């Protein structure tokens, strides 16, 4: 089965290849993503994120989920020497870069715990798979109708960070300026939480982000720098 729905401002497509598809689990996936959007979006004034940012919720009163998100944000801020930061000066709290991967990974976990063995969940270009191998194309950074590599992915996640869709929206928090060192960076990791956040953080770091991401445990990297060179780890699972 396949289902496509607009959530969080981007299309989420779910493909399940199991013979028996638990409809309740599929419904729970999309319900959870809508819930995550309502609770953690910085663009919804009544979200938990906005209420915390306005001081209406005390730091000790945040939900366990939001505490987990904020802890991840802090972990990546420290790991990038401050290049990745969800609290930029003059801007509101914006944990989107963590929320997306984290919430889609949890959606995938709902499917797994319902016994679904073979699925591919793609949320706006970020992919979580179960079973496999799935052939995951990496979008060419300059041509929307082309790919620049194909990965064989089994029970793993793939995320790409780039500026071709929404312009230079990722800032290097060390300078406050848009990150420009890379055209795109794709991370393969055991979970989408790790893949998506590492991809965004590596993009914020720029050229040094390629080596940084490849040193993270469990991460494989396929990056295109501003000179259109591909830099990849040796073990990134390129399809034959």
């Amino acid at each position, binding site marked *: 089965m396949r289902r496509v729905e607009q959530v969080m401002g981007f299309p989420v497509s779910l493909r399940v290849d199991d013979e028996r598809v638990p409809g309740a689990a599929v419904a729970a996936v999309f319900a959870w993503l809508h819930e995550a959007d309502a609770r953690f979006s910085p663009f919804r004034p009544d979200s938990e994120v906005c209420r915390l940012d306005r001081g209406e919720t005390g730091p000790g009163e945040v939900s366990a989920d939001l505490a987990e998100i904020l802890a991840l944000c802090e972990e990546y801020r420290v790991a990038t020497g401050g290049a990745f930061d969800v609290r930029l000066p003059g801007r509101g709290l914006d944990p989107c870069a963590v929320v997306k991967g984290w919430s889609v990974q949890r959606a995938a976990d709902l499917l797994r715990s319902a016994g679904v063995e073979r699925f*591919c969940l793609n949320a706006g270009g970020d992919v979580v798979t179960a079973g496999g191998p799935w*052939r995951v*194309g*990496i*979008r060419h950074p300059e041509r929307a109708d*082309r*790919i620049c590599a194909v990965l064989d992915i089994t029970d793993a996640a793939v995320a790409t960070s780039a500026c071709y869709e929404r312009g230079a929206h990722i800032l290097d928090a060390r300078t406050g300026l848009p990150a420009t060192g890379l055209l795109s960076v794709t991370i393969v990791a055991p979970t989408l939480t790790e893949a998506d956040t590492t991809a965004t953080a590596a993009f914020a770091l720029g050229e040094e982000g390629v080596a940084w991401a490849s040193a993270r445990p469990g991460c494989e990297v396929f990056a295109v720098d501003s000179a259109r060179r*591909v*830099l990849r780890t040796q073990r990134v699972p390129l399809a034959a």
Partner: protein
Amino acid sequence: MKRAIPVLVLTAVGLVPLWRYEPSTAASDDQVSAPARTVTPAPSASSSGGSGSSALVIEGSVVNTEKGHVQVEVTFEGDAISSVRMLQQPDHPQTTAAVPRLVEETLQAQSADIDTVSGATITSEGYKESLQAALDARDA
């Protein structure tokens, strides 16, 4: 050799950041053990031999990092380091990845049979033109 030892210590200490790649505020927690190095003059296996030069193999101190113990062995040919070998390294996944080996290639544009596409956050506008939309339509 008197010159070699400071070089060794600097080398061993200099390698530590590779195992502590992740920027951290916990630097003060790391401790360098008391210098317990041994100096082992050894016949050179690799020198070309004609000049009678011999290699000097020195085991570095064991350095305790937050990832585990690090100890290197440095071989000198005269005053120059000819090789550095790990005697102990932390059993941590980051260790082997700490010095990333990257492959450089040229960017290719291709179309191929794929199940899905990974790309930067696709907006609705972008999605309409995207490969993923085509894939969704194909299987709908």
